[in-house]
């Protein structure tokens, strides 16, 4: 069963440099997963807001960080689109893009799902990591990709996060992680589960080094990701209305025969229950992060003037 662990697998090739040549808008379209059938809006010029029902110019919401111009609904966006919105131009240096998944349990249908996910997301795995700058302040960033198997965490996602954190320690940089995930990735079994422990332990080292960690929760964040790195921020931020929880509402309903009250598991619900510091609209995210990063730059200790 484990004899083939180092066997080669058939994955999509994503040519080096390919991502860099795309415009943010192309990339974000790639990652859009809101339920609008292509049939309904065939030309890609229009998009219907799932919250207020308004039919919007794609171009308009593109210019508004993919936030509905009518009701401020936050459309899901791809990791690359988020990066483009967030960091200083040309400041991103990607790390560990070469790490790819091994179907070490030979789990039924996993390889096919991986190929599908790569095609859908244009990424090699469900997270983007590296270093970047916001308003010229350097930091380490990781961004989950929802369209890659629901941003689920397998060995590669866990490893990339742990490596990013360890490099942040070496470089003495703060870490910001944007989560969007269904949880641990079933197809890698216990190996996925232990990525929760791995990422949490790495954050323990970061904390020991007194380096800032900001966790930004975006829609949706559930399961093993909520129960590990996503919940361990010194500062916990969420986008408005994002669904965040440990167990998904459908499972709660099935298992407990319990219907969740309206608004349960939203960012606002989580904040009321003491779990989130700040709810920040995507259009404000860059400036809020800039401020928080600046307040935690080295040299701000013991009352030095910044």
């Amino acid at each position, binding site marked *: 069963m484990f004899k083939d662990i180092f066997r080669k697998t058939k994955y999509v*090739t*994503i040519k080096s440099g390919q991502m860099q040549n795309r415009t943010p808008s192309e990339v974000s379209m790639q990652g859009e997963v809101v339920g609008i059938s292509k049939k309904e809006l065939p030309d890609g010029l229009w998009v219907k807001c799932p919250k207020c029902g308004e039919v919007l110019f794609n171009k308009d919401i593109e210019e508004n960080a993919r936030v509905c111009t009518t009701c401020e609904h936050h459309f899901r966006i791809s990791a690359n689109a988020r990066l483009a919105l967030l960091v200083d131009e040309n400041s991103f240096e990607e790390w560990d893009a070469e790490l790819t998944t091994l179907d070490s349990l030979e789990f039924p249908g996993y390889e096919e799902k991986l190929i599908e996910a790569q095609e859908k997301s244009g990424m090699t795995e469900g997270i983007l990591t590296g270093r970047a700058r916001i308003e010229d302040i350097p930091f380490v960033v990781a961004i989950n990709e929802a369209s890659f198997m629901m941003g689920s965490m397998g060995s590669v996602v866990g490893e990339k996060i742990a490596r990013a954190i360890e490099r942040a320690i070496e470089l003495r940089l703060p870490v910001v992680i944007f989560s969007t995930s269904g949880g641990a990735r079933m197809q890698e*079994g216990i*190996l996925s589960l232990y990525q*929760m422990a791995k990422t949490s332990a790495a954050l323990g080292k970061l904390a020991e080094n007194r380096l800032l960690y900001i966790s930004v929760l975006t829609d949706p964040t559930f399961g093993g990701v909520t129960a590990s790195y996503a919940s361990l921020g010194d500062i916990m931020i969420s986008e408005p209305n994002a669904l965040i929880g440990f167990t998904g509402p459908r499972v709660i309903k099935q298992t407990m025969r*319990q219907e969740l009250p309206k608004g349960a598991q939203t960012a606002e619900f989580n904040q009321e229950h003491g779990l989130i510091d700040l709810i920040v609209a995507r259009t404000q995210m860059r400036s809020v992060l800039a401020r928080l990063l600046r307040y935690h730059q080295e040299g701000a200790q013991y009352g030095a003037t910044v």
Partner: protein
Amino acid sequence: MAQLFEFEKPIAELVVRIAEIQKFSADKGIDLSQEVATLEKKVALLKKEIYGNLEPWQKVQIARHSERPNFYDYAPLLFEDFTELKGDRLFADDRSVAGGIALFHGIVVTVIAQVKGKDTKENIKRNFGMPHPEGYRKAVRLMDQAEKFGRPILTFIDTPGAACDLGAEERGQGEAIARCLLAMSGYHVPVISTVIGEGGSGGALALGAGNVLLMLENSFYSVIAPESCASILWKDTTKAKEAAAALKFTAQDLLRLGVADELVRESQGGAHNNLNQTADELSQVISKYLIRLRSESPEVLREKRYEKLRTIGFFHETADINLTKDLT
């Protein structure tokens, strides 16, 4: 007699036949001792055959057996003394998690254990062994205390998973589990975790990220319940058996995957068949590792725990080598 599984019926049938023959022999005064001896040998062989080749799903059934020993069954056999300490100091005492100070082979240890009930009444009290955030927060409180006083930590895992109700969500189930993982990674004392029954997902892992992971040989430890996995994969919860095989979650699988460090022998057919024997095995294995870990320095204990977690997982490291299909 204990609840019988389908796969145990051939053994039971033979045992009944032996009893019938013995009765016949006694009633009629005919010596059938040779036949009985042959049959008993056959029973022994059959047991070895059946219990030695259990499928993953059969192990799940044993691990979930209603009479499977729980932590409170093992405690008096493992410890010279166990003083239970309660509460998270914040909200409640969660009775699906037991914790306290115990004397183990003359060593003062802190113990944290998940506890399922043995009957419906107890299961309601213990929420079927599914901890709420207060259970994990109690665990962290007591483990922090162990760290403060330099006591080794023994954890015992036996849960279908963390509680999944509205209250758990309101009180931050994810945060509570994550804090367990973070806390455990920082301790300078030995942490030995043992799966004694069911190791259900993140709710189990919260107590499982120690220096050493032991597993009773019929226990399992999975990222997802086989029923839920089947439901997602094949939209059919009755295919749990297939999911159980696909998930590679038995003690033997985890040993091969480098997640478990050693298996603990159970009495034949499962721990419920001989509690004392299983407890004795468990005691010896834990003791062996505890002695080994005691010889390490606090800093090394911590560093090795980190290194162990860091190496779990498989992936390709070199770009392009596995990429054979062009996206464009």
